[in-house]
């Protein structure tokens, strides 16, 4: 079904997608003329396939559960923020705070993501085919952040249990973030994520893994300079 945001109000489109009858089999939607609107496809809870043709604004696919959303364009701040499950695929670039605080699901960005990608992520898997900006993975708690390009300054500052995999250069590491050994289990996990994101031209063995040195978990006076 085609939904035209030039003819329908954003709220009408979101309400229709949020209140899908569970018995209905027709679950494919195309949204045209998004024109940079904010909160397109926010709060979906059912298994739907949605194709958005064009650029969107902030918080696209926020709080997503189960839905499979593809954006054929760029996204603004906070795409898939607080996602619980499902898949969000951005074919263009993403602005700051992509996948912020998200608990689950998969976010794939074909282009670059700017600053604070995966900030405070809590279990989501994020795969960026391009590069990420500064402070990516800031205070991230669980899940995986995969970057095929480079990472900006202060990567993984104050992170907890998230694994960060970077193929290119890292401008600098944030407080308490260190490079860690790539074990077989990590290569296996990363290979799986690359496969899920349909990336065939990169080998998991060429990535470096970064994680928490765990020095900031509890306050120690010796670590005062790290705070």
């Amino acid at each position, binding site marked *: 079904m085609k939904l035209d945001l030039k003819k329908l109000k954003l709220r009408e489109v979101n309400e229709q997608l949020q209140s899908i009858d569970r018995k209905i089999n027709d679950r494919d939607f195309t949204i045209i003329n998004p*024109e*940079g609107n904010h909160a397109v496809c926010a709060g979906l809870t059912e298994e739907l396939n949605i194709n958005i043709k*064009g*650029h969107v604004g902030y918080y696209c696919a926020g709080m997503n559960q189960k839905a499979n959303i593809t954006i054929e364009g760029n996204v*603004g701040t906070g795409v898939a923020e607080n996602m619980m499950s499902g898949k969000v695929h951005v074919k*263009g670039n993403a602005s700051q705070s992509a996948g912020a605080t998200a608990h689950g699901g998969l976010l794939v960005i074909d282009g670059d993501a*700017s*600053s604070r990608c995966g900030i405070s992520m809590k279990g989501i898997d994020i795969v960026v085919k391009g590069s990420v900006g500064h402070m990516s993975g800031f205070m991230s708690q669980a899940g995986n952040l995969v970057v095929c390009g480079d990472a900006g300054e202060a990567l993984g500052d104050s992170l907890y249990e998230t694994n960060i995999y970077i193929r290119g250069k890292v401008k600098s590491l944030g407080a308490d973030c260190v490079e860690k050994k790539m074990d077989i289990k990590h290569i296996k996990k990363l290979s799986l994520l690359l496969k899920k994101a349909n990336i065939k031209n990169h080998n998991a063995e060429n990535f470096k893994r970064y994680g928490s040195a765990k020095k900031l978990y509890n306050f120690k006076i010796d670590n005062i300079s790290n705070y």
Partner: protein
Amino acid sequence: MCGIVGIYLKTKKFEKNLGKMLSGMLNNMESRGPDSAGFAVYKNSDKKEYKYSLCINNLDFTKFKKDISKKIRNLKLNQYSDHIIVKTPEIPKKFIKLINKEFPEVSIVGYGRSIEIFKQVGNPKDVVKKFNLESFSGTHGIGHTRMATESAITTDGSHPYSTGEDECLVHNGSLSNHNNLRRELKKKGNTFTSENDTEVAAGYVSNSLSNNNSLKNTLVSGLKDLDGFYTFIAGTRKGFAVVRDEIACKPAVIAETKNYVAIASEFQAMAHLPDVNNAKIFEPEPGTVYSWGN
């Protein structure tokens, strides 16, 4: 939160439509700044005269026209609601002195050989309509919708700020060292009409340009000297630039085609621009100056 927009035409194709393009962008940024709005439009002129953008506030236009015509012989006046564009060969130093002395209720919004500048409190849609922005043509333009945070909702507190000939600046963000910088600039001879932080940034740019620095180099040194959160769009007679601070919390998107460069706080402000879906769309990198023209 504020909304900032700007458009710089690389070719002559859209010169007649500049006002229309800019007004669409401003209307769209109402959600980011409903308190006041303003815009500056640059239009090349071969004439050896100056254009003074004045806000006459509650003064009666007919009376103002009659009074000022007695003081200055060679002048033309165009009225746009409470703003007047005065065209005259009279040099800025003399003209500004005269206005300040004889017409204390009139504020000088800006002046130069190509800039025309308008700003007023109220909803951006009303402000755009009131000054009939759609009818303007030009080479580049800059606009602002304000959500006031650190100083009052007044015409003087509205953007764009113009503190030098054919210069203007709009700002989304807040500066933390503006009081110190204002004191330093005052010592160097800059004057300020408000308590607003952005006016200090505009003064900083004017001061640097008057020392023969380029707009680009001015903004590069501004990255060190201006402390706070900002995305700035700055304009000069032939130049146009954008810069974001190193932290880059304040948003900006650039869309570039072979005919124009457009900048806005959010993409939705540019969604109506011609051929925008085939434009190169990117976010300006933190702490990097992007400039066009000179």
